[in-house]
């Protein structure tokens, strides 16, 4: 019975779907075509809406107008400088906010004492709208870059802190017991056990927080200054320069997307060991 198949086995191993030439886990293309469908539909709808004047151009200019506006802003209005100004603020704030959050998150995760010390205060503060803090922040930090960085960093802090903490709480007790049996120090425990296990949770919050930082650049730059994408958005809204508004939205969206994907790729590299659910 089993002999009948023997003749074709040699070729089978090379030629067919199940052949061993295939690696066990197919490397997925990171940016597959299917992801383009929705954006394409949106852009198509946008074009149609503009062409047929479904939506007043005051609210939504045609795509081509936006491209022209982009070109003009880039060549004539120093868009690159605004962009850099915002990147600088956002980058700093993201860095400080997330470093503080991961650090404190680990501390709180490792010691329930620390969690209990900060927990109630943080859980109270983080619900309070950012705008309510502005007068105090300005009073202490003025209206320069530090104030802007603080406004954004505060918002970056909380999701990362909470996810780090929860990521650590989710580390299987078994592994903590192992670490304790091997008498790992706190620092070794963090490096070898807790952090690797919490990485997925931390990474998702970092990806999210990066988006948040961009979203808050408008609030921060509304505080002061005449440059940055946030300023441009405010100005565009006030002057009803909707084409410029959309340019800023698209830029922020695409930059955010690029950041997001690079963090995602990083995550995949870091999590090579992970046998999660691939969907």
């Amino acid at each position, binding site marked *: 019975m089993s002999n009948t198949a023997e003749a074709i086995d040699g070729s089978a191993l090379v030629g067919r779907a199940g052949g061993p030439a295939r690696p066990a886990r197919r490397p997925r293309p990171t940016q597959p075509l299917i992801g383009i469908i929705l954006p394409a539909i949106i852009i198509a709808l946008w074009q149609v809406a503009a062409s047929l004047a479904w939506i007043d151009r005051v609210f939504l200019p045609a795509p081509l107008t936006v491209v022209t506006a982009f070109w003009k802003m880039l060549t004539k209005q120093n868009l690159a400088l605004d962009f850099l100004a915002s990147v600088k603020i956002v980058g700093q704030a993201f860095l400080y906010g997330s470093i503080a959050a991961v650090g404190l998150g680990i501390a709180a995760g490792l010691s329930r004492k620390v969690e209990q010390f900060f927990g109630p205060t943080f859980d109270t503060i983080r619900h309070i709208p950012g*705008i309510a803090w*502005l007068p105090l922040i300005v009073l202490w930090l003025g209206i320069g870059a530090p104030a802007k960085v603080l406004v954004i960093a505060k918002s970056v802090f909380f999701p990362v802190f909470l996810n780090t903490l929860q990521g650590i709480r989710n580390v299987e007790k078994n592994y903590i017991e192992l670490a304790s049996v091997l008498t790992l120090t706190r620092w070794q425990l963090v490096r070898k056990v807790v952090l690797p296990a919490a990485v997925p949770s931390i990474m998702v919050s970092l990806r999210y927080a990066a988006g948040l930082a961009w979203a808050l650049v408008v609030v921060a730059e509304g505080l002061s*200054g005449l440059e940055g994408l946030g300023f441009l958005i405010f100005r565009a809204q006030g*002057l009803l320069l909707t084409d410029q508004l959309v340019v800023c939205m698209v830029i922020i969206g695409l930059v955010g997307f690029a950041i997001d994907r690079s963090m995602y790729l990083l995550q995949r590299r870091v999590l090579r060991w992970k046998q999660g659910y691939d969907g």
Partner: protein
Amino acid sequence: GTGAAGAAEALPAINLQLTPWTVIAREKGFFKQEFDRIGTTQINLIASGAAELLGAEAAAVKGGAIAIAQRMIYPATVHRANGLDGEIIWVSEPSNRYRAPILARADNDNIKTIADLDGKKFGSSRISCYWSSPFEIAQKAGLPLDSREKQGRIRYTSIDNVAVAISSVLSGATDATTVHLAAGAAATGAWLSGKLKVVGRSPDDGVYVNNAGRVTYFARRDFVDKYPEVVKAFLAAREQTRAWTFDHVDEAAEIVARETRVPVEVAKFQITHAGEWEFMAGEPNAERARNAIKTFQAWYIENGDDILAERKLTDAQIDAFVDERFFVGGQYSIYN
């Protein structure tokens, strides 16, 4: 005033708001001319944010990030009522019918005059001229706005964000709003786009035009006491800039467009339109300025303003609030 001691010490650097007139003053040397004389060599123009967060800006004044700030008379008074230790060193002449009109969508044929707003929706910020001016217009027309406690004839809702208030009118979510057409970038674009029309104006003899609609300059009391000469130089520079600007509108518009990053037509509109804010003449008479505050405070209280009702400034406080040293006959007056 106790300002006599002020001459003692020079102020090497000063932070001022970056506004259309200050950029002209810097560019054209009016600041240099006035400030050099008293040893203030460095003038920093700070762009207080496009978000116009008044509380944050007040904090900036308090914290020293801005020495002298422009402020509408109502928020300035409320800040004082709330205990901010500042004073008014300049008040504008009365406002006019062009500054805070009621606007509707240009192609909305149902609304042509204020009377057409009966039962319609009106959205604007509750904490500013955007409320007091239409309130007075509507009341005069016999169509009171809704308040928190009582329904009127016009459905009033507060919309804090000016862009949203205008979007609401343009999209039909509300029927009318009030904004300053030529103050800052906020509404100028919408007006210039031709999408809006004026359907109501403040009465010339009303409280808004004569009292509540004035602009002030506002500074910390200890700062003023210490550097009255600086304040005077500031006001003098402003006068010169004003005069120059009206003579050189196009050049001024270009400077403003470049320095405040707005299109040149917007800049020009902000200088030439009858509703402009930046280049208003001053009110030389301290007593008239005080009376303006007293009058509009009474009016606000009468019309249900919970804040001023509760924290009413006494006449004595108002008298002290307007620093007469900088008005006609005062020690540091530019009007003498």
